[in-house]
């Protein structure tokens, strides 16, 4: 498998993603600078976390118009996997590759801590090696991770099994008290209709080696490797 990590001005998880893909997942990986137009030959595209363009206007709103995004959108439309993590998720929302929008965290605080999430579906290239109901321990680090969508979109996400992860307790209880940021229906990650685009706020790349206290994130890379 080959992977490309898109680098925007202000990305700050690009090197973590690169490192984990190269040394943990052991795939061929390269950076893809936001000003380039032609995506190098790749199977997976990663939109990493950070503060692209300083998060000016709205998170992801300006990155979404980077030259690189045209070929990322084409890659996604061809049915090939794209994962957006944190700011990458926000960019996918602004680009319209995923439905909904991000709001400021309900508490207005930037939240940086480990949380638990329950895997809600194995039916995606990102989660096929993770049994439904499996609880993962991954860190979040965001000020705007409060996922919002209208009731009709939410109903579709639920009915089409497109909620990939929900915030939960260590035991997998998905109640409001384990929701760190106010996201509707405890949503931590969602899939597009074709199931080849995943956006998630938690950072699997920061939890793929025990030196960082959890390697639950590895399951996502393992799923992608098939």
């Amino acid at each position: 498998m080959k992977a490309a990590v898109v680098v925007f001005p202000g990305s700050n998880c690009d090197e973590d993603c690169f490192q984990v893909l190269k040394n943990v997942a052991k795939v061929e990986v390269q950076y893809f600078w936001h000003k380039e137009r032609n995506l190098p030959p790749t199977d997976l595209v990663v939109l990493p976390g950070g503060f692209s363009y300083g998060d000016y206007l709205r998170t992801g709103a300006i990155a979404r118009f980077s030259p690189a995004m045209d070929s990322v959108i084409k890659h996604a439309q061809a049915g090939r996997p794209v994962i957006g993590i944190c700011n990458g998720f926000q960019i996918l929302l602004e680009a319209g590759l995923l439905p909904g929008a991000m709001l400021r965290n309900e508490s207005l605080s930037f939240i940086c801590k480990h949380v638990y999430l329950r895997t809600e579906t194995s039916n995606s290239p990102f989660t096929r090696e993770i049994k439904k109901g499996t609880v993962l321990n991954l860190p979040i680090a965001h000020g705007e991770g409060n996922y919002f969508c209208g009731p009709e979109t939410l109903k579709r996400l639920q009915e089409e099994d497109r909620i990939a992860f929900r915030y939960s307790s260590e035991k997998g209880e998905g109640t409001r008290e384990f929701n760190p940021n106010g996201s509707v229906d405890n949503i931590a990650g969602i899939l597009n209709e074709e199931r080849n685009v995943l956006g998630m706020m938690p950072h699997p790349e920061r939890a793929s080696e025990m030196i960082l206290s959890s390697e639950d994130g590895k399951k996502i890379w393992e799923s992608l490797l098939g």
Partner: protein
Amino acid sequence: MGVNGRKFKADVKVALKRSVLDPQGKTILAALHSLGFNEAKDLRAGKHFEITLEGRDKVSVETRVRQFCEKLLVNPVIEHYSFEVEELER
């Protein structure tokens, strides 16, 4: 001055929709109350853009500003907007 000739100013206001919770607005309202401004009953925080632009006439400038909003300035999932255009000089 460019080919379009006339100069305009657009004032664009963007705010979260009523159906969307605005924790920032709520916190600012609470701060007003803590200062004793208890007559403040509701507050929604938003953004304001002042744009200077050129155009043929007011109607065509308004059409363009609407495009600015819909393409970039506003996320219609969570926000609504309004704007006013005035001519700066002739």
